């Protein structure tokens, strides 16, 4: 099968959906000439013109408002809110204005909005351009969240997100773009349903749930652990909301042991939510404490010397896995 990059996969997903449905349009800061800061939307302006690809002022609350208002009236907006931290600038707009009305209106209104944002550390982008806010966003009822780790998942999930009638947050990891990560992606059209996890590696000793960049680190750790005779199963939830509990529980039936590895400060992270779900609904399957391999509860330091320590990595995962063996 052909291989394309994570960046190309994102691009293809948006491109295909824009050509498939003329109600889909995309706007954000610097999407027109830059095709977004990392270039994943490059060429769409030339292809679809100024009515389908719009550069906005630096006005994140207006951008979410524009997404809501246009979604309510027949359009299917994709709004590019660059860095995950900028989502906090329009947090009320997402939490109150975008995610509550379907319920509050008794089903009288719906907002098919896709938000796309970069997340993730590892490129010394410092304290305000490096975060993953998955756990914080999971506290928002009414929002679906996807966080793909491979080109295949990125394309399939983004296409589903754009077709979804509820608001969806799409996170993609800067490192997976900038490292030029490649992967197999069929020529033929496909989508991946929201809310379905993927077992990235089968194993029998410990279940490791990991997202985005951490999925790759977990897979790398798996090889090292194998050398030590420990066989981990790596599950990538792909969707954080709703989350695919069944796939995790199924794995735990085999392993009885769970480590969750995500790139967020531990407290209030997506790892906490997953741990809570398991401790509540699959307690009887557990044979050991649930370990969370996360970042410390601090901002993200700039210097690579500290950023590297701040981020969860293979060694930390190996240590956690070993501790519960």
């Amino acid at each position, binding site marked *: 099968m052909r291989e394309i990059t994570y960046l190309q996969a994102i691009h293809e997903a948006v491109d295909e959906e824009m050509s498939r449905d003329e109600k889909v*349009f995309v706007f954000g800061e610097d999407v027109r000439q830059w095709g977004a800061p990392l270039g994943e939307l490059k060429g769409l302006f030339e292809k679809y013109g100024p*009515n389908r690809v*719009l550069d*906005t*002022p630096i*006005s*994140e*609350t*207006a*951008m*979410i*408002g*524009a*997404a*809501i*208002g*246009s*979604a*309510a*009236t*027949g*359009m299917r*907006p994709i709004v590019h809110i660059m860095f995950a931290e900028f989502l906090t600038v329009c947090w*009320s*707009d997402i939490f*109150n*204005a975008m995610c509550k*009305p*379907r*319920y*509050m*209106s*008794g*089903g*009288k*209104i719906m907002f098919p909005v896709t938000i796309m944002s970069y997340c993730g550390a590892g490129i010394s982008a410092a304290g305000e351009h490096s975060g993953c806010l998955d756990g914080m966003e999971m506290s928002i*009822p*009414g929002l*679906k969240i996807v966080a793909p780790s491979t080109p295949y998942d990125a394309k399939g999930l983004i296409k589903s997100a754009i077709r979804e009638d*509820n608001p969806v947050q799409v996170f993609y990891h800067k490192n997976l773009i900038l490292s030029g990560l490649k992967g197999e992606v069929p020529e033929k059209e496909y989508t991946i349903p929201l809310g379905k996890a993927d077992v990235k590696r089968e194993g029998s000793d410990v279940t490791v749930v990991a997202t985005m960049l951490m999925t790759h680190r977990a897979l790398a750790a798996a090889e090292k652990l194998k050398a030590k005779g420990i066989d981990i199963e790596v599950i990538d939830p792909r969707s954080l909301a*709703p989350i695919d509990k069944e796939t995790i529980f199924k794995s735990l039936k085999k392993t009885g042991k769970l480590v969750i590895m995500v790139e967020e400060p531990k407290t209030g992270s997506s790892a906490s939510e997953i741990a809570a779900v398991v401790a509540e609904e699959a307690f009887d399957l557990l044979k050991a404490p649930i370990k969370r391999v996360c970042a410390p509860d601090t901002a993200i330091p700039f210097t690579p010397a500290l950023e590297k320590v701040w981020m969860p990595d293979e060694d930390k995962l190996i240590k956690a896995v070993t501790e519960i063996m």
Partner: protein
Amino acid sequence: MKIEKEKLLWMYRTMVRIRVFEERIGDEFAAGKIPGFVHLSSGQEANPVGVCANLRRDDYITSNHRGHGHLIAKGLPLDIMTAEIFGKKTGVNKGKAGSQHLTDMAVGCLGAEGIQGTPVPVAVGAALSAKLRGTDQVAVAFIGDGTLNTGRFHEGLNLAAAWKLPFICYCENNTWAESTNIYDATALTDISQRAMGYGIPGIAVDGNDVFAVYEAVYEAVARAKRGEGPTFIEGRTCRRRGHFEGDSHLYRGQEEKDECLKRDPIPRFRKKLIEMGILTEPEADKIEREIKGEMDEALKFAEESPFPEPEEVYTDEFV
């Protein structure tokens, strides 16, 4: 400006409808029949009516916490609205929204927002959609004076101006945001000047004169449809009651309150219509009686409607 008789009568009827609705809701609230909080718009009726008299059913509005008048003027029936405020199953939003969040796309209302400022960017989004879809619809955001100091107002209005969207920001300046006077909350003495910071027209009108409101909005709608972009309109009005029911509004001087009662837009409009020969006293009285009857029915409908079943908690969300 000449307004056709039919429309004038609709305007009068609608102003009376809002007044009767608000006062009766106030009574019902005082009688303990309405849960939560209600913010009434008595005294401000000329604003929503002067605005909505320029709108079609498929034009869009967004509203705020003091939104009953906006919704009524846009055409929401009193019965399902009252039932909603009573928290009943038959309410326009099944009782899930209440007074503060009335929403009905059937009359073009994208929602009443409790977070100040939000009505602006949301309506701007509807205006963007109208432009992208190539329709001649317009979108109006109703906000209060206090809301002029929110970031959302700024970002939304600037975006609409930059993109020349068919949008109107209509500010009901009743000079109070809860207990805070607008002239303490900004250095402006003329609120409509705020528009100058966006490069768009800022018009101040007497918000208790429905003709003045109508004309300003008429121009703004025409400008919007010509593709020239948004207009900011300040309707200078006043609140007859407290911020919400139960607020004794002691922070306002008695003089100011009396002044407001004197500026009542409804007798003023009625007098004018009679002078113009559009309406006679008995006809006006009849309208009032009819509306009261309509409101009696709405209240009856609301009272007799059941509350939603407990299972409704789990519907309307993808959980």
